[in-house]
């Protein structure tokens, strides 16, 4: 279920040339801001939670997830070079699983690690906040990668659709309509953070932990299976 060659190609498509730099900008920004806030305000649990929850988990993780998840397969389908990959004797599900593993790894490295460091910089892991948010970021990056990889196989506008989900559904509608939060990867990840973080830290999710875990597994497995099915019957459309 894992093909090293496909993994290497995907890795190079994601991080080759200048793309790694683009992906580095966001985590670097988070670390700079964390250092600045610590210097301005000193250690403060509420501010840490605000910055890691409101900025890191709400924008950083989904954006990196969109770039890595759709970037793992979207450009190949877009320029037609996926044909050369599909004509090799490799199972389509293997291709998808390999790409998912690479995309998840990239998302986790570029989001969870900076979140952990930022958490330590902001308040020195008091109330387990740094670990809690880093774990949440790892779990979210698995679900986001599977979701956006599926989008990448389904639509040419995968990046736009992914951004619509991440920014409009989770940020805008999620803050207005309470029920929309049940279907939000961010809230599922927050449920885990709530469990790990100390009771004094006000990390709260609108979804219970068991529900959140079940939904994460369903989305990840379901997304991967569907993407494999879609890749089995892929038709290459002409350029519009």
């Amino acid at each position, binding site marked *: 279920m894992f093909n090293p060659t496909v993994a290497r190609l995907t890795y190079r498509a994601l991080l080759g040339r200048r793309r790694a730099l683009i992906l580095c900008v966001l985590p670097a*920004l988070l670390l700079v801001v964390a250092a600045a806030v610590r210097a301005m305000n000193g250690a403060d649990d509420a501010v840490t939670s605000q910055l890691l929850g409101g900025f890191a988990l709400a924008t950083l993780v989904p954006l990196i997830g969109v770039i890595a998840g759709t970037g793992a397969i979207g450009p190949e389908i877009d320029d037609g070079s996926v044909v050369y990959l599909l004509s090799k004797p490799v199972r389509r599900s293997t291709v998808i699983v390999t790409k998912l593993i690479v995309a998840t790894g990239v998302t986790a490295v570029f989001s969870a690690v900076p979140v952990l460091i930022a958490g330590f910089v902001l308040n020195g892991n008091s109330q387990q906040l740094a670990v809690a948010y880093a774990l949440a970021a790892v779990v979210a990056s698995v679900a986001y990668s599977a979701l956006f990889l599926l989008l990448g196989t389904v639509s040419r506008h995968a990046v736009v659709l992914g951004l619509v989900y991440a920014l409009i559904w989770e940020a805008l509608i999620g803050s207005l309509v309470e029920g929309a939060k049940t279907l939000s990867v961010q809230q599922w990840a927050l449920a885990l953070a709530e469990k790990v973080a100390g009771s004094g830290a006000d990390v709260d999710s609108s979804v219970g932990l068991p529900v959140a875990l079940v939904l994460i597994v369903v989305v990840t497995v379901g997304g991967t299976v569907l993407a494999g099915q879609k890749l089995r019957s892929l038709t290459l459309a002409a350029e519009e």
Partner: protein
Amino acid sequence: MSPDRTPAHTTSPHAVPGQAAPGQWEQSGSAGAAGRGQDVIHNIGYRGYEGPRLGRGYARRALFTQALRGAYGLGRSAKSKVLPMLLFATMCVPAALVVAIAVFAKSKDLQVTYSEYVLLMQPIIGIYLAAAAPQAFSLDLRFRTTPLYFSRPLTRGDYVAAKYAALTAALFVFTAVPLLIMYVGALLAKLGVAHQTEKFAQGLVFCALFALLHAAIAAWIAALTPRRGFGVAAIIVAITVPYFLVSALQGIAATTDKNTAIGWLGVGSPGTLLDGVQSKFLGGPSGFPAAQTLDAAQGAVYLVVLVALLACFTTLLLRRYRKAGL
């Protein structure tokens, strides 16, 4: 020996190389009478174009219209009309709702002012921009059509100006039409013509500033990459991440009672920069935490930064096309 010596060719005063050139051609005997055709090896009958040339201005206008229509999916496949039109509808429907609420609540004014509405809808505008800018810029690089454009009388400046103007116009239409809906609705609901007209005019100025700045940023980013997906993601990142970041920092500054810092922090992102400009100069309400407004020095800095950003990004865009490699 040319079978197609048409009258048009023989009587044509142009391009008779045999008469002008010295040497061997003159010695080909029946020079004057035979005219053109005998002195070339193969003449398969291609004719030069001798009609009017429409010139640079026409090419510029054509490129502008094509890019503007393309930004809304007009003249493209049905599938590519879906996204812009859906976003445009999402942009217009809440404007109608604002009017409807004002009518049913019998209030004296609209609940949301014109410039505030544009700022509220920033996520939608951002996504529209991220979809439209690579369509206008990246695809020409990807399919290598830029050399074809530049082999015409069109210059580099013309190409950039036409595309940038088209993107700005598309964004202006995208933001101004909902405001027009609100304005017409407000007039029909008899909410005070003078007041509404003043606010609407200020709102239109704000739309123009918003479109100019955002189109410049998005156009430059889109022109850097031939891949549409990366362009879309990079534009969204460049527009939303600084905005969320500055808003989060302003929130922290507000909770620690550093109110002047809120104003200075606002320079850090296009969205908050424009928010500050509209609350200071265009009579809109401030979207900053604690409704913080700018003092005179901050206002001046905001305007200078706005102009500097515009100049910087348009220059960068123009420089990008000095060497149109990938």
